[in-house]
């Protein structure tokens, strides 16, 4: 075990407050709408705490992650591994470990961590704030346009302590800047463990961010992620999540459209096998006028897997001229699989256009027959149809090597 949290970070009060929050509010249960389908007993078996040093050698990342041109920060068991990381990048980009950044610029980072009670959504977020020591910080200067993607890789290698590391990622885009950040979460080993990663993103006026989340930890792990985004006026946020690994994989977004004419476009794919539970909790908050948001999520559930899409659109008073859409389409491949899809719309402003729709279906029998009549065997036709359904999310990713990696992960051919 490395140093205790008090030693590694001066923001003791914030950490203590977060622990107090847990003490006071307790852990979520099935009665919490956002945690209804989570395996609470199993989550309680995880040991959340300060980073646990790796007892084995660092695994070979090789094919576990997409090959990207550009700088990267690799975090292993909650601690930045400088040997695997390339902290230098193009002009206008500043990369550092979270540990260094909080030590050197505590005031600047405080906004991401010193949360008032109402900003903490649940005990796991509080634990992340309380115990999170290290992680990645990405800052992009105003006006900078970054041509290469920034890769943040989180590697979990749990041991018999059932450790789940609490890691922080901070992304700040200056006014008028533009960047792509890929967060890949992987793990090694068959030991039970987990990761609890909290990403806070601020996108200043006129800036644009594509944020790709690749969750592919082993099936023996649980993964909790929280992505908290605040957008300035005329800014653009593109979120693409691929929730693929873990026995319980949770991807939670809270996007605050805080400046007028901001645009948020969130899409994602969850693809479950075995008895995986893949949970998407999406909250888009329109707090400024004339903002647009899109949520486009697809689920494919095989075997006895469970998918959850809980998508919220909150239009706050005064956010007139809001244009929000949400769609969730699901493909169920087995009679033991299930999907729970729920739109939540709360509209407290005027002149609002809000659309939502959800579908749950099985493989299109007429398409199966059509393909088979062309000589394509049933197994292959099924695979083509499933891939075709999933590809419509994959195609939204702008980086080819990321698309290739996802296709390989899903057992697709590259087309």
């Amino acid at each position, binding site marked *: 075990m490395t140093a205790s949290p008090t030693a590694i970070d001066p923001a003791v009060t914030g950490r203590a407050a977060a622990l107090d929050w847990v003490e006071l509010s307790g852990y979520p249960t099935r009665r919490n709408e956002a945690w209804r389908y989570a395996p609470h007993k199993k989550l309680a078996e995880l040991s959340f705490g300060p980073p646990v040093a790796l007892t084995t050698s660092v695994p070979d990342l090789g094919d576990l992650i997409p090959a990207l041109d550009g700088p990267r920060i690799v975090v292993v068991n909650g601690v930045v591994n400088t040997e695997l990381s390339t902290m230098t990048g193009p002009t206008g980009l500043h990369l550092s470990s979270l540990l260094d950044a909080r030590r050197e610029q505590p005031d600047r980072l405080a906004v991401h961590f010193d949360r008032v009670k109402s900003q903490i959504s649940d005990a796991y977020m509080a634990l992340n704030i309380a115990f999170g020591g290290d992680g990645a910080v990405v800052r992009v200067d105003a006006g900078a346009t970054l041509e290469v993607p920034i890769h943040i890789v989180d590697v979990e290698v749990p041991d018999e302590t059932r450790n789940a590391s609490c890691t922080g990622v901070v992304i700040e885009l200056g006014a008028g800047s533009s960047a792509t950040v890929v967060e890949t979460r992987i793990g090694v080993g068959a030991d039970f463990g987990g990761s609890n990663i909290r990403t806070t993103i601020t996108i200043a006026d006129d800036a644009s961010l594509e944020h790709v989340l690749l969750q592919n930890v082993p099936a023996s792990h649980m993964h909790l992620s929280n992505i908290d985004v605040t957008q300035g006026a005329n800014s653009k946020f593109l979120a693409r999540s691929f929730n693929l690994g873990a026995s319980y994989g949770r991807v939670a977004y809270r996007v605050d459209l805080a400046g007028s004419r901001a645009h948020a476009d969130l899409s994602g794919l969850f693809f479950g096998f075995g008895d995986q539970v893949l949970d998407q909790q999406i909250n888009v908050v329109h707090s400024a006028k004339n903002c647009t948001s899109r949520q486009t999520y697809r689920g494919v559930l095989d075997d006895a897997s469970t998918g959850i899409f809980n998508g919220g659109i909150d239009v706050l008073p005064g956010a007139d001229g809001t244009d929000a859409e949400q769609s969730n389409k699901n493909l169920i491949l087995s009679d033991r699989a299930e999907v729970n899809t729920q739109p939540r719309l709360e509209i407290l402003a005027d002149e609002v256009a809000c659309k939502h729709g959800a579908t749950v279906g099985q493989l299109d029998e007429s398409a199966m*027959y*059509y*393909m088979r*009549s*062309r*000589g*394509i065997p*049933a197994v292959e036709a099924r695979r*083509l149809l499933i891939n075709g359904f999933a590809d419509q999310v994959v195609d939204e990713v702008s980086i080819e090597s990321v698309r290739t990696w996802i296709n390989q992960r899903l057992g697709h*051919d590259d087309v």
Partner: protein
Amino acid sequence: MLHVNNLTAAIGGKQILNDLNLEVGDNEIFGLLGPNGSGKSTFAHALAGRDGYDITGEVTLDGADLLDMEPEARAAAGVFMGFQYPVEIPGVNNMYFLRTALNSVRRARGETEVGARDFLNVSKKAMDLVEMKEDFLYRSVNAGFSGGEKKRNEILQMAIMEPRLAVLDETDSGLDIDALRIVAGGVNALRSPERSMVVITHYQRLLDYIKPDFVHVLVDGRIVKSGDHTLALHLEANGYADFENDLGDASEQSFAGAQS
């Protein structure tokens, strides 16, 4: 090449084909005409192997028993059906679909697969035949295609698959005159001594472009009249009323038989 003996097909207890008999020789094109609900599409699907029908009788292609085969095996045996309503498959690239289809059939026949570059040449030739632009290959199968584009895509597939027997189910429906000319031109170009075609249609119009060797009239699930292409002209002028009246008694008997 194709023998159809006493073919019956029922769906949900409703008899659609009644003891249908048909012989198709090599290098023949025949038109299959009939009123709505006479069983034309069911005949096509019975050959292609669609699920959900109760089928009896015998259908052989070059001696092989088709009725025992899965749809993909029938395709490998040389059956191609041009769909009246081609299915949209969003997310599946047309070229990938076509190449997978061709190579699946070739694999089933023990032939070598066609590589990506060779396939591009094969598909280019087929595209010229139906006057399709290259971007067709990169779109999803039939997704967002116009009615005419879908039917051209069917003929494109036929050109690539090079079937022994093509059954074209109302390939003319929903086509304007230009699209009809293109589709018919494609079909005519694909005539071959090793290939026969069944052209199912409502109207004489298509048969102006694709001149059949024989015309069969299907009413109430059986062939009530056969002749040369002038039979189609007769039907265009007089409709099906003659045949429907002729058949009244016979069809009642067969329905009674099916229920007992």
